[in-house]
């Protein structure tokens, strides 16, 4: 019985992730491709070392972009669905939708927002190919730290809540998380510089677009998955009437 619920939620999580990926792809195509093209133009103006194109720009910016964002959405959806299965009924008196929403918010913060504050998204032309190993390792380390500290903060908050009350416990957990993240950011080495002459506005536009892509993806996932999960977990008596009215 319980295993069936997990399976149902996992499938819906991946489906919600796919839907969120479609929206994020549309956003990325409309808003993100401009800054990417600007960065590639800068790169090509500076050097001609690029050989023949393996994948053309028009494919990279459409089918390639869609593949990457959709697969990312499905993967995040699956992982978050499993995380929600664990979180349901364990993080406080939250229903299915609120749990999904809070999990998506937590995921967005710890998997994307906190790590990129230290190691921001970089457009083509920014980042030395010789340091890709180190940059990848540091980025993954930053995500792992941020996720683990986030889980630690939730456990701390749950532990303090009976004695301190929900508000104070949540505040203490948030402060502890922020302080620990700040220490990690100070200790870890800095990221790469942009090449000389790279326009600061292009860099900012690219990073803002990247933030937008991820925000759309996580928000859409939280809302879609919350809706689907609620129908699995809380089939209330009022619901058939509502669906009959809506049609």
């Amino acid at each position, binding site marked *: 019985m319980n295993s069936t619920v997990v399976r149902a939620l*996992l499938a819906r999580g991946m489906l919600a992730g796919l839907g969120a990926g479609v929206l994020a792809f549309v956003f990325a195509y409309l808003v993100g491709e401009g800054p990417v093209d600007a960065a590639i133009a800068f790169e090509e103006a500076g050097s001609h070392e690029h050989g023949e194109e393996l994948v053309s720009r028009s494919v990279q910016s459409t089918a*390639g972009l869609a593949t990457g964002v959709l*697969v990312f959405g499905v993967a995040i959806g699956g992982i978050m669905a499993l995380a929600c299965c664990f979180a349901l009924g364990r993080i406080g008196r939250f229903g299915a939708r609120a749990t999904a929403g809070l999990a998506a918010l937590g995921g967005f913060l710890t998997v994307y927002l906190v790590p990129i504050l230290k190691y921001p998204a970089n457009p083509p032309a920014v*980042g030395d190919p010789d340091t890709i190993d180190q940059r990848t390792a540091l980025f993954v380390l930053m995500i792992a730290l941020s996720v683990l500290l986030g889980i630690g903060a939730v456990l701390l908050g749950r532990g303090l809540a009976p004695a301190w009350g929900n508000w104070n416990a949540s505040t203490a957990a948030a402060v502890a998380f922020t302080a620990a993240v700040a220490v990690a950011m100070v200790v870890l080495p800095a990221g790469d510089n942009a090449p000389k002459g790279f326009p600061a506005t292009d860099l900012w536009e690219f990073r803002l677009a990247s933030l937008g892509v991820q925000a759309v993806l996580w928000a859409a996932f939280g809302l879609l998955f919350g809706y689907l999960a609620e129908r699995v977990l809380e089939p209330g008596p009022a619901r058939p009437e*509502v669906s009959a009215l809506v049609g």
Partner: protein
Amino acid sequence: MAQSTAAPTPTTPVLTPLPVRALVPWAVFFGVLMLVLLYFVGAEQGATALVSGEGVHEWVHDARHLLGFPCH
């Protein structure tokens, strides 16, 4: 939602946690599978490569940049 606020007893039903025992097989198998997908979107043919060449990297190039992963 409007119905539940109008109801005389607007108590949120407390969800019973799913037992960890029911969760583990799914989490292990699909967790690993999803991480492999993330690896291929985010890092394959960057710092490490399972498939030779540049095809995977070039195909997901724009997504990798815009999702925030380090890329070449």
